[in-house]
């Protein structure tokens, strides 16, 4: 039983003001924060992009995907292999990584897409592990085994090489902003509503004319392509990739980011990603207990706000006039 919480109704000007304030904060942040915190900001961006992708699958359609790190890994390794072995410019590989991750998602999710709830969850965990183990086992000498691949070239754009933390900070946040905008457009369209119909009641959705299979696959493909892009930027920033970066724990953290923020909420997911990255940073002084606090905070959130910290408020979205 879900408990009902009073919903705040925030007027539109206030919301716009908030949006601009957060944009101003994000843009100005690297100019007054230390290098260390700019890097933290970069990781918030990476997790925001991963979270937004997972949010489509988990939040919008309600498919329990606990193997999302696999698509992140596929994006990162696509970039690494094509750049180091074939010399393709790193930034040009951004769409390629997205497409390869999306293609893999389509291939692996096609046979399992009809599974429900916990069954799908278990299969996605297995997929995540399979990808990681394949990378470790170095098939055909392509993935470099446990050591991964080193020496990824720095990306450049219009003759400017992206090298400093500030450069990378802006690269990832521009991507996050573009993706968030695109997803918002989708969310408030026929496609987004159909995703939510499936989440709410799959049988009723099918009976109302929603092509359940096609829309679930679309969600997986979009979610994975965002993870693929995150993989590309991550590989470019680290200048190396290794299987250790793409563990089950990472999939869990993305899952937590979506749950914490509010399933199906775009600002919520970005907020959730920020919490997931910032919490361990803030609690560094109590180093050995920080994961304990993290777990407690998570449990408390789910208990007191089961819909997430920043849920989507649907009742506000259609300001319709009298007929």
């Amino acid at each position, binding site marked *: 039983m879900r408990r009902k919480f009073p919903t705040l109704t925030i007027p539109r000007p206030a919301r716009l003001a908030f949006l601009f304030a957060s944009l101003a904060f994000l843009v100005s942040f690297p100019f007054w924060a230390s290098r260390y915190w700019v890097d933290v900001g970069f990781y918030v961006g990476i997790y925001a992009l991963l979270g937004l992708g997972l949010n489509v699958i988990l939040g919008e359609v309600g498919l329990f995907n606990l193997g999302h790190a696999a698509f992140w890994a596929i994006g990162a390794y696509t970039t690494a292999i094509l750049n180091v072995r074939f010399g393709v410019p790193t930034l040009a590989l951004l769409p390629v990584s997205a497409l390869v991750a999306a293609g893999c998602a389509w291939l692996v999710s096609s046979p399992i897409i009809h599974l429900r709830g916990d069954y799908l969850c278990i299969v996605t965990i297995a997929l995540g592990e399979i990808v990681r183990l394949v990378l470790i086992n170095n098939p055909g000498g392509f993935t470099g085994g446990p050591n991964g691949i080193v020496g990824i070239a720095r990306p450049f754009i219009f003759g400017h090489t992206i090298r400093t933390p500030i450069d990378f900070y802006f690269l990832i946040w521009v991507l996050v902003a573009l993706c968030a905008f*695109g997803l918002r*457009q*989708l969310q408030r*369209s*026929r*496609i*987004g*509503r*159909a995703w*939510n*119909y499936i989440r*709410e*009641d799959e*049988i*009723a*959705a*099918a*009976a*109302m*004319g*929603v*092509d*359940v299979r096609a829309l679930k696959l*679309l969600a997986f493909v*979009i979610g994975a392509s965002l993870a693929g892009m995150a993989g590309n930027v991550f590989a470019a920033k680290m200048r190396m990739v290794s299987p250790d970066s793409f563990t089950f724990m990472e999939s869990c953290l993305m899952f937590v980011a979506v749950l914490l923020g509010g399933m199906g909420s775009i600002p919520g997911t970005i907020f959730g990603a920020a919490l997931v990255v910032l919490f361990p940073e803030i609690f560094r002084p109590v180093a050995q207990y920080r994961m304990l606090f993290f777990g407690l905070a998570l449990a408390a959130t789910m208990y007191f706000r089961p819909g997430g910290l920043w849920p989507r408020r*649907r*009742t*506000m*979205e*259609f300001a*319709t006039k*009298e*007929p």
Partner: protein
Amino acid sequence: MKDGEAILETKGITKRFRGLVAVDRFDIGVREKTIHSLIGPNGAGKTTVFNVITGIYRPEEGQVLFEGQLLNGLKPHQILARGIARTFQNPRLFRNMTCLENVMAGAHAHGRAGMWSSIFRIPHQRREEREILERAEFWLEKVGLWRFRNELARNIPYGAQKLLELARALASRPKVLLLDEPTCGLNESEKETMMNFIGSLPQMGLTILLVEHNMNVVMGLSDLITVMNYGKKIAEGTPEEIYNNPVVIEAYLGRSEGYAVAS
């Protein structure tokens, strides 16, 4: 069976669940712009017939024909697009979405906009969205739920939920509407509203196949009644004929001692 007139027909459909034969070589022909009721004791297989027609179940045998075309093997969303919509016995609403969004679901199948046109809001997509919204508003108003348009479906009263499901089905512009116990769980005045509304649908060009336990509703609305028991058709006729049919009375009461179906 009056062939040629039937818009929706089943021919010898059989649906088995392991050993249990839920529907056994069942025929029904629903004529255009009529209200055709399907009645029978609990567990007779009425809802299974609905699920077979709408493609949720696949029949082991038999055919489902709609406007003379075979529906077997089509998926539920394809069957809706052909013009058959349904409601469920217990409302299966999209509970955490607003009433307006629920009704918009009905218009989904008639939209074409895909991923890119939705992201870039091309003119065609905008026009389509406006049409979906207008159609949803029209039906929401028609069933008298305009005041709930921005409420979440789970927060509105049960009677309103039943009406909302009906509006959702109607927004898909169906030719045939399958209603599974539309008055079940409603109070007397809500029943009245629902009955009048259903009764007005054939004039709008709709054909209704109705499953219902409330005999006042069935007798008052139906043009034709089909009675089933143990998955088989046991009688068919006008309300008058069914009312006096000893086989029907026996099916409901076990033996013929008058007519006393709960209403």
